[in-house]
């Protein structure tokens, strides 16, 4: 089997993002960028399927600026086999991403596309579902467990109020949730090997996709700052304050 894993370059999860002074977006200049954590989980899962002998090849794909090559290299250093960079400098939205991915699927013919359930920058949680619809494939979203069988996948999904297990006929789309696995570290020998793995370079136009955003961002603002707490001297004062605020 062949697995395709789309990976997005996003502002690192641990960076404190700052809104640009003109309110058009968040500050990206000189900010640490990393692979979207859910995508890291997807790469790890693909590698585990390969280690279990269920998968022969893993292709990581990134749609983004030239620097997204580094994100692809991270996937290759973890253990993926080759990469595809669809170079695109401007803002891009899930539908356009899904259309490009559909184009790549047409050329690569993977059995599984493993995606993160959402990217932590825009939190859209749409690309996997849109891709499933465009391809007419089965989808198992928010996966916390994936088991490969002949011609099918058993996917345990994290749903409100519990877990749900679905059986998907291949080819299929899976999107990862946080508890699926713990991604591995990239070892030095593997980082060096990754430098020799091939990365194809493409553009949205190669797949006939018009990636112009259909949504316009009007304004980006900081959330209201939380008010500082106060210290009370006694239980009575605490009760008094709570009453004052109408909380009890």
């Amino acid at each position, binding site marked *: 089997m062949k697995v395709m894993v789309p990976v997005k370059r996003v502002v690192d*999860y*641990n960076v404190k993002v700052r809104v640009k002074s003109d309110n058009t977006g968040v500050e990206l200049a*000189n900010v*640490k960028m*990393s692979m979207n954590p859910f995508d890291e989980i997807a790469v790890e899962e693909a590698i585990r399927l390969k280690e279990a002998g269920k998968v022969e090849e893993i292709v990581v794909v990134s749609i983004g600026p030239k*620097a997204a090559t580094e994100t692809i290299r991270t996937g290759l250093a973890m253990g993926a086999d080759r990469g595809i960079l669809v170079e695109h400098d401007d803002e891009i939205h899930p539908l356009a991403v899904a259309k490009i991915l559909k184009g790549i699927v047409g050329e690569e013919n993977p059995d599984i596309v493993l995606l993160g359930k959402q990217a932590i920058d825009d939190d859209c949680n749409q690309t996997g579902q849109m891709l499933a619809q465009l391809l007419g494939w089965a989808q198992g979203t928010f996966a916390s467990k994936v088991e490969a069988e002949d011609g099918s996948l058993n996917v345990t999904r994290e749903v409100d109020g519990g877990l749900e297990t679905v059986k998907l006929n291949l080819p299929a789309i899976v999107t990862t949730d946080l508890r699926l696995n713990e991604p591995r*570290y*990239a*070892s*030095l020998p593997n980082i060096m090997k990754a430098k020799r793995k091939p990365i194809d370079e493409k553009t949205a136009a190669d797949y006939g996709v018009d990636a112009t955003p259909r949504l316009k961002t009007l304004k980006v603002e900081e959330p209201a700052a939380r008010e500082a707490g106060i210290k009370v001297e006694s239980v009575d004062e605490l009760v008094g304050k709570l009453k004052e605020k109408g909380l009890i």
Partner: protein
Amino acid sequence: MIEKSHIDHLVSLLGPECATTDQDRIAPLLREWRDKYFGHTQLLLTPNSAEQLSDALRYCNAHGVAVVPQGGNTGLVGAGLPGLANRDEVLISTQRMNKVLDVCPNDYSITVEAGVTIKEIQQSAETADRLFPLSLASEGSCTAGGTIATNAGGVHVIRYGSMQALTMGVEAVLADGTIYSDLSPLRKDNTGYKLSSLFAGSEGTLGIITKATLKLYPPERHRITTWIAIDDINSALNILEKLRDVTADRVSVFEIMPHSGLELVLRHIPSTLPPFPGKEFPWYILAEIGSSIHDPVLEETVEDCLSNMISNNQIADGIIAQSEQQRLELWKLRESLSEAQKHEGGSIKHDISVPVSQVPEFVKTVAPEIEQRWTGSRVIPFGHLGDGNLHFNVMQPSTMDKQAFLANWEEMNRFVHDRVTDFSGSISAEHGIGSMKAQELKRLKPASSLHAMQMIKKALDPNNILNPGALFTRD
């Protein structure tokens, strides 16, 4: 007992806000975090300005009332607690002097009151797009004054120096109430003795620091964090040398820990992951290269450098963190080691340094000597290899009673300190002397140095009212 008339006078001088005899308010400041020392005092002063403190010290000096200054009370050598060894001392806490006064990005400087925590200083610097580089596990509590007074070190010394190097000037109240000040962001000022340096390592014995001007640096917006496995501790020196060389000396962190230490962390600390699943190596290095810009070329240079060292068998294996999350995970392995040791039983601690070039030889020679002499004990040396500073801690034999093992504390200290001295090292690399190592200092510091220290002490504090229990022994 401190005479009641003195207590009454000091309370009336500072007012009930800033002076208290209420033991409920005093008690939290009398315990240190390891429960190794318990202080006692009848009076706590929390002055809010140098002027107020000056009034108090002038009175104390005139009447021979001893005082102990305290910042965040994170010191590890029993130096910031009053009333040890049955002395009578007033506790003076800097907790009300807690304001950041000025951050000047162009001067790369910050001026703070003595009670501001290191964490707050780091955060103020960050807001101004600057780095305050001192970084240590106690940074959430320890203060500007306390870290100057102990000349604290931490993990960034290899690149930025210890607290002394980061201090450009101080304001301090001397024993006689004089307010000394050389607060200034001047990088060059050769007008006589650099007196602010005198407060580095003074442990509250020369004056009470009330303000400080500290150095800032460009931020490390990008960090290459690597966890390296080595078979032979000798390789560590080659790795350090190569990394400093190829990164244009941007190595900010170079820490070492043995496999036995990693094992303790993985066993006792929740949510820690083995960096090399299924594999073991004798030693690990955590190194970090910091840069103010995102520099893919630098990353490649580091990768090439390290992988070359794998090819010639200097490095056994390695990881480079691919995200801040992974970086924090690797850091957690190093930073949890002290805590993990606590879960494993008693350990006898040594905070020592030797010349960096001597670290491998020291470890290879002295660790077996100890394990032979104290049968069943395990030496777990870890720490700031880049500074030649090891926390040379010795764990109890697993079957032995904890107290029985800890009874060897002083004897083992003397043994290790003798060997450190043989290697031209220091018996206190970063934690200070306090009352804990005063005897050892007297035993091992060259007499001429001790004499010079005593002359300075006598000149600035002739009545010996400032932290009389620290640094010097009573006789």
